[in-house]
């Protein structure tokens, strides 16, 4: 088994474990490169089926290419697709910096969706290499009743024995991609022939490295127009992946505050 085979096997193991142990689980699909790989892995784990709902918590501010992608593949891949809306920015914590407030809409939308569908757990495609706080995440990550993450007291997790016993009312985030890196995602997408959104590829010297909302996501300088060139670029770049995501950089702990409140 090579490195990509190992990553894939670990993700499939996590999917199957969560699906077996937890009732009423769903997957978050943000339409970005990571969640597309996550969806692909789920289809592998369950032999072409996705036996749980796939949910897009929509800010209404995604790129048009992302919406087109969503509408096409939700149908083609026969997904149990759910779309839920986010509340307006006025509903968010006004003490947060502006871009973080914009991101906090998603947290509120997510909480409402969980409440509405009574999901006990959600698959989320975060990776440890994206951000230093995510690096401290567990694969099976319990959340409090209001969705908050207690990062000071997380359950031990070893030997692939995940914490799957919880008092009623606990909500879980399950992270099948936690052990992947950005380059892994690209190499795997290429190997498997996973469809990709064109925004990731360079156009007029710019490309998006990470896709969020249109108004708070910015492209980076790049001439990489194929997956190969993207991988080459990532091997040499020293620009961090989320450099184009404004909300991470407003204050030293703005991302920590978002995450503690339930942001992914």
């Amino acid at each position, binding site marked *: *088994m090579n*490195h990509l085979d190992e990553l894939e096997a670990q993700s499939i193991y996590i999917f199957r*474990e969560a699906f077996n142990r937890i009732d009423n689980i769903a997957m978050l699909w943000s339409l970005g490169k990571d969640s597309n790989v996550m969806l692909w892995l789920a289809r592998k784990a*369950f*032999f072409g089926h996705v036996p749980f709902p796939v949910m897009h918590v929509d800010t209404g501010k995604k790129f048009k290419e992302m919406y087109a992608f969503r509408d096409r593949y939700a149908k083609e891949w026969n997904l149990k697709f759910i779309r839920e809306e986010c509340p307006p920015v006025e509903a968010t914590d006004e003490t947060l910096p502006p871009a973080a407030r914009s991101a906090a809409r998603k947290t509120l939308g997510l909480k409402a969706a969980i409440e509405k569908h009574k999901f006990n757990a959600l698959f989320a495609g975060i990776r440890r290499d994206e951000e230093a706080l995510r690096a401290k995440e567990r694969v099976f990550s319990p959340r409090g009743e209001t969705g908050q993450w207690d990062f000071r007291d997380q359950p031990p997790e*070893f030997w692939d024995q995940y914490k799957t016993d919880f008092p009623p009312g606990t909500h879980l985030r399950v992270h099948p991609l936690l052990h992947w*890196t950005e380059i892994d995602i690209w190499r*795997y997408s290429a190997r498997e022939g996973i469809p990709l959104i064109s925004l990731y590829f360079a156009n007029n010297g710019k490309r998006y490295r990470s896709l969020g909302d249109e108004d708070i996501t910015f492209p980076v300088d790049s001439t990489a127009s194929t997956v190969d060139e993207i991988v080459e670029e990532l091997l040499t770049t*020293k620009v961090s992946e989320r450099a184009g995501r404004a909300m991470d950089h407003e204050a030293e702990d703005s991302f*920590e505050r978002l995450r503690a409140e339930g942001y992914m």
Partner: protein
Amino acid sequence: MNAGPISATAAATRAAARQLLRIVIVGHVDHGKSTLVGRLFHDTGSLPDGKFEAIRKMCERRGMPFEWAFLMDAMQAERDQGITIDTAQIWFKTEKRDYTIIDAPGHKEFLKNMITGAAQSDAAVLVIDATEGVQEQSRRHGYLLHLLGVRQIAVAVNKMDAVGYREDVFTKIEAEYRDYLASIGVTPTFVVPVSAREGDNIATRSQAMEWYDGPTVVGALDSFQLPATSVDRPLRFPIQDVYKFDDRRILAGRIESGRLHVGDELMFSPSNNTARVKSIEVWPEPSDSDARPNTVGAGQCIGITLDDQLFVERGEMASHTTNPPVETEVFRAKLFWLGRKPLEKGKIYKMKIGTGEAQVTVQEIEHVLDTTDLSSSTTSKVERNQVGEVVLRSRRMLALDEHTRNGRTGRFVLIDGYDIAGGGIISMEGYADQRQLVTQRAKNITRVQHGVPTDERERQNGHKGGVLWFTGLSGAGKSTLATKLERALFDRGYQTYVLDGDNIRFGLNANLGFSPEERAENIRRVGEVAALFSRAGLLTITAFISPYQSDRERARKAAGEHFHEVYIKADLGTCEERDPKGLYAKARTGEIKDFTGISAPYEAPDTAELIIDTSNLSIDQALEELLGYVEKTFRS
């Protein structure tokens, strides 16, 4: 709108060639783990743009000198307190390969986080502060790494700048720690003197320590081996789930060791059913059916279908019929405890082993180990952050392996309430593989009705048939009391007979030795014979040490309601003093191995119908009690 499916490319092919090794950095708090990581990144040119500046700013804001540790310490609380709370991961590369660095907290309170980090690693760097020397956590972490299965360890003796780069300081610490590791069976791959703050011997050789001629930390990392795959070991395929898709019944799971081929006969444990592999299922379905895989191996998450619609469920372990896993309901374990409440003797926990679950009782806490000085004590509790050697008993048969034979199927966790509270590795030392004892080989057999009904026998004899099962240590008085009781009962008109250990081994069980398996088989046969005698109307008395609870339970099952367990009780000291056959003396000198009470376990009964304490009673008193019991119980 999208670039569409793309074929495998040159970049993807290169990815396969590049290796990844996962390294955990452990050690006592403040010994400089996070600083070492920061330095490793800086000196190998792995820092992202702006990161150095960002850390500098954070330090300025706090009015402190530059602190490398901030690279890993992502939480506000960690930066404010200058400690690592939870394990973090970060990626870097050397010329040779890619690394995931896992930084594990050194604080005792965060041991669960250290274990979470260490258990994901292929190798470890253990950091020791040259100014403080070997500390409590240095020892504890070394021990736990070994227990968790991390076999490649480099020790970095840090802060050498603070001790004037003196060789004698380093040599003393190296010797002390090597001694400790040797005592737990670990040989560190390298011991490297470093200064993380100054960058000595991290990626480049130190000018200040020319007396050192070993590798740098990067050199040590690059010398580590990738984890070996266990495809050449016996097949272990724990069933994770069973899916019913498109009329296929797919058994899904990960192969933990060995290989599996289409057409192989698989045995499922503990149910002991067998069937053949019909297909290996994959998605996407290959367009050419010849391209379907025919063989899969360790590490792969797979799905198979069988040629026979067996009932198989999650938790069963598939293997080949040769080299199957051990079947047992009792085993020994070395475990580390993380629970808020201590592990207690007699308490029931949920055990997770592979994909299986079982309720287990803590039958014995043999030792509690102080990992800092390896001294052991006997208590009835294992407190948080301690290591204990215990015996666990399950209510149902388990399929497992000894940890030394298969690391992945020989380990488990315990759940207390909702929490994972401990993890352990399995040893079967002194306990029998019960597979042979529960496997019935003959098929197509039916029971025949007897010509004489039981109540007619009872009426003619004037008493019921039954089994008085004497158990107890060698020297407790079993044989003495059994033969005296036999005489006394006979004199009172009872049909009675004694089955005695040594006598049976002259005949019926002449082909059995004293291994745990053979002892269990010895007792299984005696149990069956005693049950037959009892159905023949005899009051059968057996005198066997019969140290294992499982074996006595099996004998009870054979004889049914007429089984009476009699615990002939005497403490080890008393028995050893009596030593009627001189066996204890031989066991003490090691001449006899596996001797109950000395080098093999004795599991005292907790549900005996009668206890005869021979350290307090004379033979006559004991006999009187036994006679009273028989008259009351068996006279019809």
